[in-house]
């Protein structure tokens, strides 16, 4: 009974950590540019595919992850520069379609480069399950949770301690004022895309041994990441992390106790329920419209 619950919690935590990373990616870009980047899932896919295919051709794993990460960052910057930046004053719908166009484009390129097959990436430290109080856990889950934890703390420090991080925060609060004090707002947007891409790609690499890599792996992960970001309150970093963990754990519990077929629906049921009562998410600030 308890072992079963623990089992669900552990698997929920693992997938929740990936949602948290994706959600954080959504939040960072939203803060810098007020864009919801529907291509966020493709960054995850790039990380997963690059590390799987590169290691298969003999590249050492850490290097493969770094290359995947670098590639995703480059793609992120290109998307920001050639699509998002040019449509600066476009409406919300238009921007959403631009990033959806980008994600279709990226999936097309990925299929051309890597093919449609599932790619396998070996677990980082073996596949001997670890037994915890009757529940068993893949060592890779520890990698996922650990890596996500380290990245989340690092992002927190980045925003709190570094000048670039503060510049991004300042831009999100007041773009014009940030510009006036000499912050290069365009570079902030590019930096935020690069940062989100890196988060996604690393997440994709560590989760690949569990989920396999394929060119469509980013679609649901990306949508769940968006759910996490909205659940926490758009633009609220710690909220997105909490949102990701909540979605992941609820999904695992739902799959375990209710119906595994409805696993993917859980996230969306939660978000609808929360938005009914808290239109700005769990931690989002309540705005009063100025007229």
């Amino acid at each position: 009974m308890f072992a079963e619950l623990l089992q669900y919690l552990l698997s929920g935590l693992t997938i929740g950590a990936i949602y948290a990373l994706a959600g954080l990616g959504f939040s960072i870009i939203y803060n810098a540019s007020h864009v919801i980047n529907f291509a966020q899932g493709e960054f995850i896919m790039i990380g997963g595919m690059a590390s799987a295919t590169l290691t298969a051709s003999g590249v050492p794993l850490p290097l493969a992850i770094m290359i995947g990460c670098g590639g995703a960052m480059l793609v992120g910057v290109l998307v920001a520069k050639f699509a998002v930046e040019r449509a600066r004053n476009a409406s919300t719908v238009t921007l959403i379609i631009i990033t959806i166009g980008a994600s279709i484009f990226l999936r097309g390129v990925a299929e051309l480069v890597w093919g449609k097959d599932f790619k396998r990436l070996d677990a980082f430290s073996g596949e001997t399950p670890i037994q915890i109080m009757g529940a068993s856990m893949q060592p890779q889950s520890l990698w996922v949770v650990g890596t996500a934890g380290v990245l989340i703390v690092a992002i927190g420090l980045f925003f709190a301690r570094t000048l670039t991080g503060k510049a991004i925060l300042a831009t999100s609060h007041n773009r014009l004022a940030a510009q006036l004090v000499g912050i290069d707002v365009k570079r902030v947007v590019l930096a935020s895309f690069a940062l989100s891409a890196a988060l996604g790609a690393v997440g994709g690499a560590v989760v690949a041994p569990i989920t396999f890599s394929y060119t469509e792996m980013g679609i649901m992960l990306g949508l769940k990441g968006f759910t996490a970001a909205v659940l926490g309150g758009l633009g609220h970093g710690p909220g997105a992390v909490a949102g990701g963990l909540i979605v992941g754990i609820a999904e695992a519990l739902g799959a375990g106790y209710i119906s595994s077929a409805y696993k993917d629906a859980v996230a969306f049921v939660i978000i609808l329920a929360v938005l009914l009562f808290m239109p700005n998410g769990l931690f989002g600030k309540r705005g009063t419209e100025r007229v």
Partner: protein
Amino acid sequence: MKMLATTDLSPDITAQARRVGPPILKVEHLSREFGGVLAIGDLSFAIAAGDIHSIIGPNGAGKTTLFNLVTGVYKPSGGRVLFDGADVSGMAPYRLAARGMSRTFQNLQIFFNMTALENVMVGRHLHLNTRLLPALFRVPSLVRKDREAKDRAAQLMADVGLGKYVDADAASMPYGALKRLEIARALASEPKLLLLDEPAAGLNATESREIDEVIKTVAASGVTIVLVEHDMKMVMGISHRITALNQGRMLAEGTPQEVAANPDVIAAYLGAAP
């Protein structure tokens, strides 16, 4: 900066003997806070039917917040708003509009996705058939009344001096014209009480005088007007009564002469200690 003391009071209205109507709007102990900061505190006053009643005060005095509370855009934290004798505190703006209250905005709220004429026609909303099925099937009575509404909107535009913009897209109109477009749109709803939030802000002297004339004409037609305006010459010239606010509280109330002579008001405007 314009100083009250040097503003000459135009005698045309203030000198006249004036009938005082029953209050159309009463505000009782009204307050509203934003995150612990009191924007309006324990404010009470009444506005007589038929008056042009101005609300003045330095920036941050709470004038626009007061407008938003009275028109239902914000909900009060405490106190009541009585319109035509009924408690309307926190009532949605569209319900207040149906009771005969409309307003304009300090920061323009124009429907930029429509023509100027259509903007004013939206003001006729309450007087038209706005149901779905008649609209979908374009029943003749709806079309006929819509045509009348269109003529009426065009007339209103002419009345506020926008005759040449009837066919223009709202997005292509200059700022001064948009200010008047808001007035025309509000008038189209046939309000009993019209709240104007800085109708002359950003206008040049000629445009200001034109707005001034428009307001007087509207008032003469029996509409009660509440005016927030920084142009003291205009305020002193057309107001029957003035309420002065400072930091969300009542500072003084009376005729233009009384308020202008009030030491607290002068101090608030000059920033000196009372």
